Every structure is written in structure tokens, then in C-alpha cells.
């Protein structure tokens, strides 16, 4: 059996769950906060889940965005940030551009410093959420264009990294 770990961020809080597929079809063991919930689930139509937990039925609608996941449950919509395994997250990004417009709240590196792929370079706050700017590859910090409290626009290059050979 394969165990998968999922993390979701909501309201600046990261929730970690592990999920395991049970032997029967559509049966799962979900563990959260040291408690395991045995459930069975069926997808009525794309995104519409009918989950059986003990003798209760959870009816939820799930949709996936680029960086977020959304759940509709009992009339409430919840907007969660996907927290992907670090290694995957960086592979996706090629250049170093800000994904969002916001304010620089922290600069973690200095010019001339060498960084490793995945190192956090800068923290941007937008709409009360923090976004991490990470190094896309191993390299040396060539130029830092913004300092703390400065405004950054989506698509801007906040830091230039010179890629180290190999």
C-alpha cells in the first residue's frame, strides 16, 4: 500500500494529512491529527464527492486551481493553498518572476551570496498571504532589485541569479 502525504494551507495554517488506499475499491484511510478516518468515496460527477465516514455522508465539491484548491461543503466555500513537496514546486518555475503583486516583507539573501536551488530568497505579502520566492537553480545572487517594504508587481524580476555551471 502506498502512503501519500498532503498539505493544505488555510488562514496561514498548514494542515497535514496522510492518505492510504485501502484494499477495497474507493476506500481510503485518512489520518489527520493522529486520528484515522476510514472512508469510502465515489465521484458522482467531476469534483462532486460523496464520502462515507462511519454512518455519516460527507457531500463535498472540490475544484482545483493553479495554486489553490477549493472545497464546497455545507454551503461554505473554502479556499486552500496547495502546499506541494518542495522539490516539485521549483521544477515548475523556470525564470525568477514574482507570481503576484504585493509587498516585499523579507529579503533572505545578499548580493554575491551563493544559493542552492529551492532556497528561499524573498518573501512577498499579498492579500494578507505570504508567497515565497525561491531559487530556480543553484547560483550566485547577482542583483537584488527590491528591498523590504517595496511594492512588487506580478511578473517582475525581484532578484537575478547567475546560474553556476554544472
Amino acid at each position, binding site marked *: 500500500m*502506498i502512503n*501519500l502525504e*498532503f498539505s*493544505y494551507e*488555510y*488562514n496561514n495554517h498548514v*494542515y497535514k*494529512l496522510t*492518505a492510504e*488506499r485501502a484494499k477495497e*475499491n*474507493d476506500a*481510503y484511510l*485518512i489520518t*489527520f491529527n493522529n486520528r484515522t*478516518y476510514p*472512508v469510502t*468515496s465515489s*465521484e458522482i460527477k467531476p*469534483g462532486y*464527492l460523496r*464520502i462515507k*465516514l462511519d454512518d455519516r455522508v*460527507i457531500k*463535498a*465539491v*472540490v*475544484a*482545483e*486551481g*493553479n495554486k*489553490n*484548491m*477549493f*472545497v*464546497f*461543503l*455545507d*454551503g*461554505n*466555500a*473554502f*479556499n*486552500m493553498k496547495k502546499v506541494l513537496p518542495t522539490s*516539485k514546486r521549483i521544477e515548475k518555475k523556470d525564470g525568477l518572476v514574482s507570481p503576484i503583486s504585493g509587498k516585499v516583507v523579507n529579503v533572505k539573501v545578499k548580493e554575491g551570496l551563493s544559493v542552492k536551488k529551492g532556497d528561499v530568497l524573498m518573501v512577498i505579502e499579498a*492579500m*494578507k498571504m505570504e508567497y515565497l520566492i525561491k531559487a530556480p537553480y543553484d547560483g550566485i545572487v547577482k542583483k537584488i532589485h527590491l528591498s523590504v517594504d517595496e511594492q512588487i508587481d506580478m511578473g517582475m524580476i525581484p532578484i537575478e541569479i547567475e546560474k553556476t555551471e554544472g
Partner: protein
Amino acid sequence: MFKKILIANRGEIAIRILKACQEMGVKTVAVYSDADAYSPHVQLADESAPLGNPLSSESYLNIQKIIHAAVETGAEAIHPGYGFLAENPDFAYACENAGITFIGPKSDVIKLMGNKIEAKQRMEKADVPIIPGYHGLRQENNFLFKQGKKIGFPLLVKAAAGGGGKGMRIVHREEELEEAIEGAKREAKSAFGNDTLLLEKYLDKPRHIEFQILADAYGNIVHLFERECSIQRRHQKVIEESPSPVMTAEMREKMGKAAVKAAKAVGYTNAGTIEFMVDSSLNFYFMEMNTRLQVEHPITEATTGVDIVKWQIRIASGEKITLCQETLSQRGHAIECRIYAEDPANGFLPCSGVLTKVEPPVGPNIRNDMGIETGMEVTAYYDPLLAKLIVSGENREDAINKMVWALSNYVLLGITTNTSFLKEILTHEAFRRGDITTHFIDTHFKNWFATRPEIPVEALIALSVYDMMNAKSGVQKEVTVSSVSDPYSPWKRAGKWRIGD
């Protein structure tokens, strides 16, 4: 009747009007900015014309571009919807000049009603009650003091150029008046560079109640009863209902007559709305006239059975109103909720992004006027109104319960919306009692804004089950394939079939 109409708007209202045209057999032209090229209103229209630059001033507010599009496509009339150019007399004038029918009143009437002071003076002459006040040019402190005393207390002293509460004072006693006039002048001077003041009787616990009217070019005017629009946040209506919970048959008749009189006094044609303020003793005063289709027109349609947009088109094409006041009636109770892309837990800031799932509630007497669909991107360029949800029931309680149900079954994912806030209002005990004023949200929801609901464990379970079912990376995919479905199952080869086929 027109053969082709251009709709100079976007979003839900463009779609509402497009559908009315199509039902009437009139060809339609949509206009769109670059940001709206794939919007549902463009899809629905028979033809469309691009307006380019998404900035409102370069697209939906650009009179020349829109007139040009109408001429190019051979549209005989333009429906402006609400917002954008709907109450711009220059636009109506430009249409008149280009030989295109503007679906609305004449440009000089729009201009007159757009001047709030002049409009009030006209209404006063026509014997429509207005809020007692002083709106004159004489501004000496002792003269204003005398005027204020004459109007009585509580009294509102406000800057003529004002807004946002600056240069505004509520005066409860004569002793406070002198100081209030001086203070308001100082504040107005520094905030607006103009210290002209207005004096008005201050209405304690006012309600906002408006009357819908229809007027044709032959002097026929009918009213379609009232809408209660007191539930507002920062002067933006949030929930509207009809009939008003305070309305009596006698008061309705009086206000309806006043609304018709107001429309007659300015030679109004087409659909319009007379907005009244109603004080706690149920006196009513003319506030302003909206010379266009209102956002909340569907609740009137639900209670009267009259299609306001179709009448707008018929009236503009020169037809006579065949509705008659005596036979018009209200039936049941209707409520509208405005679904905004805004985050109540983040100071109601507008949100933008991609709508990952949109499934509005359906059921008896539930109407969805929407400009959105799954997969659509909501940009920050325009008003955050995504959709309107309108329900009607046998009575107010029935309608409220239906609205709560409908909101609870409104799947709208991808962008934060105000639906949780709407539900809080509808289930509030004071709202249920019908005890509402324009201060309702400020009074009852002052401290509500900061809370975001706790996430239930069920939501987390649903998420991880979903992720488990849709696991994407290499290892996870293998698992999915082998345990979710059997690749050798005969069902895999059956293809599409139905029992009984």
C-alpha cells in the same frame, strides 16, 4: 420593432438584455474589451464588436467606439444596461445625433435628473415630497443658522462637494448648530477646496424604498410597485426585496402616485426608478431618480410578472404601454442577493482569478442572472458583481428560507465571494423581523468582518480523498490505475450504451 440592437454593456446585465432581444426576435450585437473576448455575453450575441483596451475609459465608457460599432453593424438601437454609459447624457445625445435610438429617456431628462439639486427643485415644484432642507447659494454663517433652525432637528450639515463623511455633521440641538456650521465649513474647505454647505433634515433610521415606473412616449405612465433596498454596505445595495416589509396598501398607493407624478413632471420616457427615503414614522421623501434599468429589476419582474427589459425595448421602438395600473398587482415575495467577488474576511476587497467551478442552484422560483461560467477569468478591471440570485416565495418567510437554501447550494469556487455574508444577513433575527434600515450592516455586522470560518475536518478529508483519486505524479499514477479501475474489465470495452437502447 427594431431589427438589431447593440448592447453597450458586459456581464450579467448584457446577457439579461441579449436574451430578451433574442426572445423578441431581434438580432443582437455585443461589444467587448480585450479582457472580455471570451466572455459569455460575446458567445451569446449574434454579432460582436471589439472595443480594445480593457480600461473602462477606453472601452465600455468610450462613446465614440460604441457609436462606431453600432453604425458599422447596422444596429438601430443601443441598450446601455446599468452603470457605464447608462446615465451619461452625452452618450444619449450622441446616439440621438447618430440616428440611433437610445433605449432610455431623452438626454436632457438624464441631464436634469443627474443634477441632484435641480432634480429636487423640480420635484418640489411638482408637489413630490422632498427632504426639507436648504440648498441655496447664500452661505453666511448666521443665515445658515436661521435656515437650520427653520428646518428643525436632528439636522444634517454637509459639504455640497462632499463625500465620505468629510465636512458632515449631525446636529441634535440648536446649541450645537453654530459650531457645526463653522466646523463643517473648515473641514469642507480643506477636504474639497469648497466650503459650500447644504442643510437637510436628518432622517433617523431611514429606509431606502424605490418605485419602478414605465413611461411611454404618449404620456402613459404606470408604476410597478416598490422595492425595499435598505440593506446596503457603503451605499452599495446588497440585498433587495419586494414588497417592502413596512409597506401598507395606503402608503403604497400614495408613494406610487408620487412616483408617477415625479416621472410626469420631467416628461420621462422608458423605465426608471424613483428612490425615496422613508423615516421611522413612515414619511417618505424623494431622494433621486435613476434614469435606467436597475440592477434589482428582477424582483419586480418576479412579483408583477412584467418583463421590464422587453418593455424598455417596446417603448423605445415607439409602442404604447398596454399595461394598466388597475390590473397590475404584486404576488408573493421576491428577494435578490448580489453575488460579489469580494472577501468579507479581508475588508471586502475585490477578488480576481479563475472560476474553477460555477454551478448555480436550480429549483422552483429560483432565477440566476449571471455573467460567469466555469473556467472564466474574473479580472480586476470591472465591477466585482458576478451574478444575481433571485428567488420568490408565497410570503417573506418562504422567500427568505428559499434564498438561504439557494445560497447554501450555490457552488462557486475559485474566487472568494460574499455568499457567507449574505447568508449571515438573511438569518439575522432583525432581518427576519423586517427590522431593517440603511444602517443595518453597520449596526449588526460591525465586528463580523474579521472572521473567516474555521475549516472543518470533513473539508480536509474531502480534499485529500480528491487528491488521492487524482494523484498525478509517476508513482501515484500507477496506484490510481491499478486500484481504481481494472484495466481488463469487460466494461472498459463496452463503450457508451444505455439500458433499453
